[in-house]
């Protein structure tokens, strides 16, 4: 964990609401593991006050990629960055996905901007068979950048499977029955909750979850998530953001 002053290399629009930000940050690029995130100061001023957490999307040489949706004021400011701007980044944060161990097929399931950490994850899954379920409201909001073996689901049926991405995965799951699979899920809470249920006692499943955060590195205690064993809370920023599906209770 450290802070770096990175330099914006480019900002690219992937679709109406989604951006791909590339920054030069050699130290970070080397240190980062898939599923980890960074806490970004979107402006020089004290406004907005807090940093904003974003998963690392990809790394390439000295360059770190972030993929983000415009949500509110902070991401709006981020979307105005220009090549050459300086960006204060704190990271790498959290534990990341566990890609070790014995499995044949990596099933990545992402809803909306939840696919953000997948490109780097895919890079680290070399040698495994990969299936990427990508869900979105409609075809306009689909994010395919950096994904592999994409299976598309849209809520309005405008592209691919007509329905949510978990339902799609379930309808396809029988094809994977004889293989040892591991699921990596990331997306909005309702999706993760549904996935958790599907995975229960059946699949090896890791979920990357979100939480409001102040610090991102364990000092504010602002980001609890209930432990499934009833023994209090994990901190999403420090103990997560990736958890085994059965470790936590998603609200």
């Amino acid at each position, binding site marked *: *964990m450290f802070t770096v002053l990175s330099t914006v290399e480019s900002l690219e629009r992937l679709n109406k609401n989604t951006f791909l930000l590339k920054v030069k940050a050699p130290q970070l690029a080397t240190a980062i593991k898939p599923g980890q995130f960074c806490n970004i100061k979107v402006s020089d001023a004290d406004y907005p*006050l807090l940093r904003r957490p974003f998963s690392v999307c990809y790394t390439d040489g000295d360059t770190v990629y972030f993929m983000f949706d415009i949500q509110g004021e902070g991401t709006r400011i981020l979307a105005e960055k220009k090549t050459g701007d300086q960006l204060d980044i704190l990271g790498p944060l959290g534990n990341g996905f566990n890609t070790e161990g014995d499995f044949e097929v990596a099933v990545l399931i992402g809803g909306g901007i939840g696919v953000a950490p997948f490109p780097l994850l895919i890079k680290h899954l070399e040698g495994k068979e990969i299936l990427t379920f990508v869900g979105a409201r409609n075809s306009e909001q689909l994010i395919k950048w950096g994904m592999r073996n994409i299976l598309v689901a849209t809520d309005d049926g405008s592209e691919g499977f007509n329905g949510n991405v978990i339902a799609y995965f379930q309808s396809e799951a029988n094809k994977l029955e004889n293989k040892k699979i591991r699921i990596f899920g990331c997306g909005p809470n309702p999706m993760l909750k549904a996935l958790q249920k599907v995975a229960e006692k059946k699949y090896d499943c890791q979920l990357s979850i979100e*939480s*409001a955060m102040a*610090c*991102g590195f*364990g000092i504010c*205690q602002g*980001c609890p998530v209930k432990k499934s064993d009833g023994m209090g809370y994990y901190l999403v920023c*420090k103990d997560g953001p990736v958890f085994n599906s059965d470790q936590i209770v998603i609200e």
Partner: protein
Amino acid sequence: MIDLSVQIGRLKLKNPVLLASGTVGYGNEIAEFTDLSKLGGIVTKSLSLKPRIGNPPQRICETASGMLNAIGLANVGVEVFIKEKIPFLKKLNTTIICNIAASSIEEYVECTRILTQEDAIAAFEINVSCPNVKEGGLEFGNNLQAVAKITEKVKAVTDKPVIIKLSPNVSRISEFAKIVKDNGGDAVSAINTLVGTAFDIWTRKPKIKNITGGLSGPAIKPVALAKVLEISRNVEIPIIGIGGIMNWKDAVEFMIVGASAFQIGTVNFINPKAGEEIIDGLIEYCKKMSINRISDLTASYEI
């Protein structure tokens, strides 16, 4: 050479920069970013006798130039603190102030009695002002008699300096500072967070599960400064200023209005090196102003 050391009653600090309780945990994570031995000291997360798991999420939310928190005093409890946290704190080579928050006067006393035996602890900060726990917190902080009693009883079980952390959610904070002084307290910290809330207009639910939270950050700086000034002008007791300090300029402002030292809280989340940077800024400021001892700044307001 500028003398940065300050004296808070009997407690000597190498400089006036302290990290505020609840914003540094027990020191380990922030130590990755900054050299804590350079700071005046750190105030550990509020401890209670038994561990507390804290409030359910959502615990925090951002507001205009501020944030609300209702952590609910999540902490490891006195026993684990001594066993697991003190060994690390000992190695930091900085002054450790142990903050205690309890639900009863007896619990305050009991915590202090046990913890005072730890050499690593230089002083106690008694949090009578946490707005986020039901049993004690606000009730104590708004009650002169309770503050008097806590001060007196805690003092009775320790020789170490006792600092009372005051609530800003009162009409006349100086009355509380006075009662602390009258009951033997060594210093006061001001301020803890202001009670605030925020609601989601689509769900009509509070953004923080606890309904209300404590407001911190730059938004509260003017209020905090006014509270410190009020104490400074009315009571002779050392004051540790807290509230919305983001940089050395804010810190200087607190010293001018009466603080002998100050704590930084929310800024640690954004810039975990802020403490060190503030020290550098203070040195530059003193040079420009031809100030040899930083303590000369305290209550140097011209009104």
